[in-house]
């Protein structure tokens, strides 16, 4: 335990990223304690490298640094061998640590990049191995590699090091981002509808139960999408703002409106498009408020926003597909409105009324 291994990845805002491996080389099995001692006795750095060439090659083969899923080449920059005596090297209770420093020269890293550190099964080190990543976030990120878990998993450089919660969805998002950074925002957008956006789902279902005509539904959902994209973008860039508690109350009111409107569609059809447009603008502000708790990358805000929006649309589509799968088969049936659409709309109106009352009460009291 005293001679556990450390892997420190440091990513400065300017210049090349540095990776330091701090390892009890004499206890690692890569060299014998005697050989480590004689290498450490050599004062010439290049001669040390030459002596330890075989061990260093094995380390370079087994030490894997991936950026966005692609393995990076590491250039050895420094070798520092601590050794007070051969006895100390032999005794694991007096660890004599070697610091092996590498540079990552060819890649310029940004807050959107994902890194992953691995120790392949081809090498063994004194376990466990503590990984520390200092990057753009205020806090470092820490991970632990063990004989059983040899990968740090994906570490998003723009995220604060502290992980508030082990969240499966967040982990999934990060895995997505390993393949393509933009995909993570798509996943975040999706999650804002399914499963986090119950009120948004209710509104979409309200639109679904309006009409048996698919073209009407597509038209209204598109209008809604365009509208909430406008206010979401405007809010993210600080062009508009509104108190979130008021927005939440109005969103609940919008759910009641669409649900009640479904019951009297013949009378209100002409105003429907206008109302959906207005409510879309409202829901966009709601998304902006939810998105406010996440840190959008400063240098690629627009692409992150685009993919977030796309994720919201995919989420909406998922809700509609589910609704179709459940009751869409009966849309042309004469009993559809009376037996399915109207009871569903009444239920949605009731849920909207519940949210409206509760949110208003919280606001007032």
């Amino acid at each position, binding site marked *: 335990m005293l001679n556990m291994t450390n892997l420190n990845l440091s990513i400065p805002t300017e210049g090349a990223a540095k990776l330091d491996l701090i390892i009890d080389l004499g206890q690692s099995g890569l060299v014998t304690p005697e050989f480590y001692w004689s290498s450490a006795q050599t004062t010439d750095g290049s001669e040390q490298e030459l002596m330890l060439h075989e061990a260093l090659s094995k380390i370079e083969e087994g030490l894997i640094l991936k950026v966005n899923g692609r393995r990076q080449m590491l250039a050895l920059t420094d070798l520092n061998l601590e050794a007070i005596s051969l006895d*100390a090297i032999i005794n694991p209770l007096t660890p004599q640590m070697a610091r092996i420093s590498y540079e990552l020269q060819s890649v310029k890293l940004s807050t959107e990049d994902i890194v992953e550190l691995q120790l392949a099964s081809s090498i063994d080190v004194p376990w466990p191995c503590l990984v520390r990543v200092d990057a753009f976030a205020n*806090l470092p990120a820490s991970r*632990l590699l063990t004989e059983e878990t040899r990968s740090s998993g994906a570490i998003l450089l723009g995220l604060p090091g502290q992980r508030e919660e082990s969240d499966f969805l967040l982990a999934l998002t990060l895995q997505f981002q390993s393949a393509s950074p933009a995909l993570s925002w798509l996943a975040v957008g999706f999650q804002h509808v399914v499963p986090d956006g119950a009120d948004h789902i209710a509104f979409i279902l309200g639109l679904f139960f309006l009409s048996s005509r698919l073209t009407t539904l597509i038209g209204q959902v598109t209008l809604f999408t365009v509208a909430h994209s406008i206010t979401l973008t405007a809010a993210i860039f600080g062009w508009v703002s509104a108190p979130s508690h008021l927005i939440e109350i109005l969103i609940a009111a919008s759910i009641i409106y669409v649900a009640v409107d479904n019951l009297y569609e013949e009378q209100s059809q002409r105003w429907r498009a206008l109302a959906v447009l207005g409510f879309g603008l409202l829901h966009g502000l709601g998304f902006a408020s939810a998105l406010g708790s996440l840190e959008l990358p400063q240098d690629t805000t627009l692409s992150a926003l685009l993919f977030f929006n796309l994720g919201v649309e995919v989420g909406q589509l998922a809700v509609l597909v589910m609704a179709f799968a459940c009751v869409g088969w009966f849309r042309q049936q004469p009993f559809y409105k009376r037996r399915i659409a109207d009871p569903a709309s009444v239920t949605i109106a009731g849920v909207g*009324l*519940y949210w409206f009352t509760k949110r208003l009460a919280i606001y007032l009291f």
Partner: protein
Amino acid sequence: MLKLKHSIAAISVASGLLMVDLAFSLGPSRALVFPESATAPGSFPDQWIHGSKSAMDNEDPAVQVHRYNDHTYILRENKAINYEGAFMYVFFGNEKALLIDQGSTSSPALFPLRKTVDKIVSDWESEFKQSNTHLIVANSHLHGDHYAAWNQFVDRPNTTMVGLTHEEVMNYWGFSNYPNQRIEFDLGGREFVITGTPGHESSEIAFYDKWTDLLYTGDMFYRGRLYLQDWDAWSASIRRLQSLANDYPVSHFVNNHIEMTNTPTIDYPIGTTWQPNEPPMQMTRAMLDEAVNAASKIDQAGIYKFDDFLIYNEVPWAYTTDP
């Protein structure tokens, strides 16, 4: 007529949901209370499981679970698995639990700490009608023999991993003036005072539980070899603990290891996996005062023997008092 029917139905749905809300809010409170006015009692085992002559033949559980009281558990890693025989702690509050330290063995097969903690949490939730308890995985300090099984918790739902760097630890507990600051920490109605205690390790913290009056001192003060990498920091920390014990009643000083035998000044051999006739793990105020006295007298590097602990002042860790 149609309008009225729809309206009544919608209002019924809303009313039903509001009634459910109301029922939950008016139902009998399941909140646990942790009064600070008196010391909540607890007990220690007469003897901790302490390894065996042959580690290979040891059949004791990998993790000894001791229920100190209803809402406080002390765990110990089997010494036959790792000679450190480290103690770990689980404190419960309303909807929150705090796990301090994760032992000296990483392998879940050898040392199933996650499984053990999950069972403790689940049994505790059943007994006290609690649910959705959020687990905080924290550390007394950042030495590998106290976080080896940390990885077992990283994919645990509803869990906060405090982190294994100094910066993450300071950020989580809210230190802006480490180590002098005292932090008030609320574990779901159970109040703790946390302060910095570097010296053995530079990110170490101590926890005082206002409910049980336990003062948890980690590796900086225990019945064993107090390896001090920074003497000045440790002597300031031990005084800080004394000051805390002056300001709050302390029932027991609890910690991470037992390395002393029952014979004053004599420790078990380093690395032993069998410690028959162990003294208690918990320590007393008199022992703390002795450590504070030592802090004011010692001014040289070296090994200093006391009845209940040994001070290894800035000497290599392998130096021992073993014959």
